[in-house]
């Protein structure tokens, strides 16, 4: 499987029955999927669950993908939706649970980050992100970490550019206030 194969070629091969083509698509996008989910949920295990969900959706729906957008946009869109749905489910569980739920950012026993220093730094930033409303968090992550334009984010999320700009404005304002409080 050549690294220079385009996404289109890989999808065509998958539709012809090539499982290797699917594997190659996953290899190209798995880190993006994981890190978006990780930043949205602030938890490795939750992010891992979302990754598996996204791959399952990908596997089932790739055959029907018609390249109306880029494959990257489509995969990111699935990841963003699954992440938000997961967070909503987690919130419901917390509401209906009679036990105190530990902070999501603290459930990192199985974290994959090797350096303790980096893990603690990430934990601090994840705690701040978790205080943002989900929509603000999402656009902040896409702008900050993936350097996506508002137009690209609009294609991924289906939200208007104006709405995304407003969410980003409030996100960076809130983050600045929270980080100053933590100093």
């Amino acid at each position, binding site marked *: 499987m050549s690294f220079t194969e385009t996404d289109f070629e890989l999808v065509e091969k998958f539709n012809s029955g090539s499982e290797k083509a699917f*594997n190659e698509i*996953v*290899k190209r996008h*798995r*880190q993006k999927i*994981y890190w978006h989910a990780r930043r949205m949920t602030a938890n490795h295990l939750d992010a891992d669950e979302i*990754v*598996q969900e996204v*791959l*399952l959706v990908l*596997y089932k729906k790739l055959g029907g993908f018609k390249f109306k957008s880029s494959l990257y946009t489509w995969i990111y869109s699935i990841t963003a939706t699954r992440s938000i749905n997961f967070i909503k489910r987690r919130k419901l569980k917390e509401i209906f649970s009679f036990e105190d739920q530990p902070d999501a950012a603290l459930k990192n026993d199985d974290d*994959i*980050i*090797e*350096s303790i220093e*980096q893990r603690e*730094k*990430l934990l601090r*930033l994840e705690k701040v992100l978790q205080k943002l409303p989900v929509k603000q968090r999402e656009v902040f992550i896409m702008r*900050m*970490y993936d350097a996506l334009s*508002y137009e690209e984010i609009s294609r991924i999320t289906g939200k208007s550019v104006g709405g995304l*700009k*407003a969410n*980003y*404005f409030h996100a*960076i*304002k809130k*983050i*600045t206030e929270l*980080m*100053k409080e933590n100093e």
Partner: protein
Amino acid sequence: MNRDDIFRFLGGLMSDEEKISFEERLNKSPMLQKEFNDVKNILREFKENDSIEVKEDYFNNILPRFREKLEKKKSFTLVPKYAAGFAIVILLALTAIFILNEKEVDESAIAVNDEYNYEAVDDYLKSYSTLSSTIISDSIYNEDVIDSLIADELNLQEHSLEYAVSSYLPAEVYSYSNEEAEIIYHELLNKKIL
């Protein structure tokens, strides 16, 4: 509102003219510059955390674990279909067994077993026979009307009444009209058989 202008500038919410105006103010104001740099440094901290060293095994294992789950899902999805089909078959079999085993009513047995009412029937029918001789018969066959009325009053099943009545009643009884049957019925009630 300097701080909000900083966020609007960094968020790309300013028009071109607004950006130019803001940059001019930024150049002229050290305080604004300091606030602007503080915000940028905070945001940079998030960006720097983008490159984190992680256990590479994790990403290498994502696909094999996914394949494993996929295989399990494929085998699991078959079971509910078979379970549903099996449940329907069981339900149909139970329904068929129930219908086939429904007991047929043994009329003669019931008639014989209604012993507790037999004496009352006996007395009643003797008086009924006397009454019936005064009634003019009709061409209309009213066996069912009479039987159901009498059976109802004596708290008997119709078929057991038929068994008992056939021993006593003259044939004319079964050819009474509706009106005649009603008269007989009310006269029987007045005789206080029950």
